[in-house]
């Protein structure tokens, strides 16, 4: 199956190469372009399912929300560690049914959830499409469910389709 050319991955790779060398000299552009064209071709055989992200505005909004949530939950977890809430936190597992099926969306969702302090992605059942979430201080299950469904899953479904 012939795929038409996707410019996004080579452009990102070229940008990363220029950042890594911290220079804009012409030979760096040349090497970077060669690598950026060669690496996607080689990597294609490893993971043949290409992602097609759309809706840049939604993605920027999602990044902004995640940044805010990371800062907020950093403060919350810091308070728990200092023991101002209670001596030991009440850990607990939580099952959340998902609507999203696309593997790229699930991968990004797992990274968002785990990178936010206080929650860790603990597993995903492929048949029932159910996510197991581990929460550091389980107080209100409804809040976590709503946060993940509305704040993260809906924009991800829009982005990855």
């Amino acid at each position: 199956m012939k795929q038409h050319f996707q410019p996004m991955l080579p452009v990102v790779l070229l940008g990363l190469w220029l950042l890594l060398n911290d220079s804009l000299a012409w030979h760096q552009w040349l090497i970077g372009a060669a690598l950026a064209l060669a690496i996607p071709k080689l990597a294609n055989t490893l993971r043949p399912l290409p992602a097609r992200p759309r809706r840049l505005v939604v993605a920027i909004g999602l990044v902004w929300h995640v940044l805010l949530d990371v800062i907020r939950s950093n403060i919350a977890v810091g308070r728990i560690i200092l023991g101002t809430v209670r001596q030991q936190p009440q850990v607990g597992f939580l099952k959340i049914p998902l609507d999203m099926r696309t593997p790229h969306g699930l991968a990004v969702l797992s990274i968002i959830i785990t990178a936010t302090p206080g929650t860790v992605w603990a597993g995903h059942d492929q048949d029932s499409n159910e996510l197991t979430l581990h929460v550091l201080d389980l107080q209100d299950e409804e809040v976590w469910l709503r946060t993940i469904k509305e704040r993260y899953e809906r924009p991800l479904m829009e982005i990855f389709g």
Partner: protein
Amino acid sequence: MTPAELPLWAALPASLLLVTGGLLALLGSIGLLRFNNFYARIHAPTLANTLGAGCVLLASMLISSVNAGRPVIHEILITLFLVLTSPVTTMLLMRAAMFRRATGRDHKGTEAPPPAPETDRP
């Protein structure tokens, strides 16, 4: 080890970022030592991985940009790398802990085990 003369408008936010990052990393490590349960401990180092590292990297970017007189932003690479990789380690450790609890290999298990659900090993 004194840095070159910096203007105050750059030194102040950079100092604030450095202090914040240091405190967050310290908090994460204290949490690692303080909690009595592995499932609670796994949440603690995320503090240092996300906002702590982010603060220090931002301060480093700010200072080296002002020193060099041009934007030096290659610290973004470390930020990107940490954001992409530290969740992978955490998730793998979580699943390893659940797997070891479920199969009873965790002889020196942690206190007060929560009911672990079934893992979804392929």
